């Protein structure tokens, strides 16, 4: 009886495993992107994504297929990120890291449709925005990234962050305000003109 049970268990296990693997392959890029914006460097981003998928697989039996997998995954990731920040203290404010994990510097070939010739000004602006993001309160950073980079609706963000729409509204508002304050204080020449639409 024991061997029959374990064989049945393994059969169920391998179906879940296949299913999970295909979901992982379909969502790892967007998940990594968000992780990168949350942490600011490739090594931490990869750790966060790995932790997220490991946790997700462990609790895969609890995933409700009615919800989009990415949303469920993001919820796990946001919690993992908050836990990590609490454990490590503030995030290190390294500038745009050009190397990948293990000191490698290989990347997948970029999408040819994305602007390959961003000028220096643009890329340093991105760096400044990324640096400022890392200085922000964790919940504020998460809320503005989900709204303005992931383009999620407030209701979706509320379910990802496990809070109310009112709280999401407040976090996005205060997050954007905090981001603007950090940018205009540090790089007035670069960012003040922007607000006035110059």
């Amino acid at each position, binding site marked *: 009886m024991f061997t029959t049970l374990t064989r049945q268990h393994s059969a169920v296990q391998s179906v879940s495993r296949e299913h999970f693997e295909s979901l992982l392959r379909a969502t790892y890029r967007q998940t990594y992107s968000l992780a990168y914006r949350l942490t600011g460097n490739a090594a931490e981003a990869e750790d966060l994504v790995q932790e997220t*998928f490991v946790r997700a697989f462990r609790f895969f039996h609890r995933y409700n297929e009615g919800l989009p997998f990415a949303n469920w995954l993001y919820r796990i990731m946001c919690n993992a990120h908050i836990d990590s920040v609490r454990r490590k203290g503030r995030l290190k404010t390294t500038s745009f890291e050009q190397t990948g994990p293990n000191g490698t510097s290989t990347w997948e070939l970029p999408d040819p449709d994305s602007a390959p010739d961003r000028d220096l000004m643009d890329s340093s602006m991105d760096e400044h925005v990324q640096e400022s993001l890392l200085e922000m309160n964790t919940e504020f950073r998460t809320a*503005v990234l989900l709204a303005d*980079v992931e383009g999620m609706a407030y209701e979706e963000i509320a379910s990802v962050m496990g809070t109310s729409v009112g709280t999401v509204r407040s976090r996005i*508002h205060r997050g954007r305000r905090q981001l603007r304050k950090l*940018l205009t204080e540090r790089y007035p020449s670069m960012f003040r003109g*922007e607000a006035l639409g110059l």
Partner: protein
Amino acid sequence: MKLLGCKYVSARLSAYVDGELSGNEMLSVQRHVQRCSACAKEIEEMRAAKRQLGAFPDVPIPAGLEDRLVESVFRAQVRQRRRSIIAFGSAVVALCGAFAVVAIVRANQEQAMAERQRMNDRAFEVARDQAYMERYDSLDGGSSVIAASYPHAKASR
């Protein structure tokens, strides 16, 4: 300069910018912002932040990330399963050990009980013999000591 309603409007400015307000709320905010330069400026700040974040380029994906993730997820699962098997096996061994201990203790107890039973029987026999001897030693017909007997045996006079 703050107008009446700035507090109400201020809390709704981000939602206004994101189109997350109901129709009536949107109109209220719009009407206020037309008259209030402070809130109008705040809206511009919200929009600028939204624009800056939206302008982020795609994050470059490290080569080999996909396979590394698959491997680490299922390696973790195998490790977890191995740990569960070891835990289960240990529990079985512990249970068997517990049963063995109980069996040994029970055997000892039975032995002790048997020993006690034997001692009781011996004591009984000694007492009975003594009683018997008393009866036949007395010269005056003896005190009629009824010989003790095993509970199941007939009493002898």
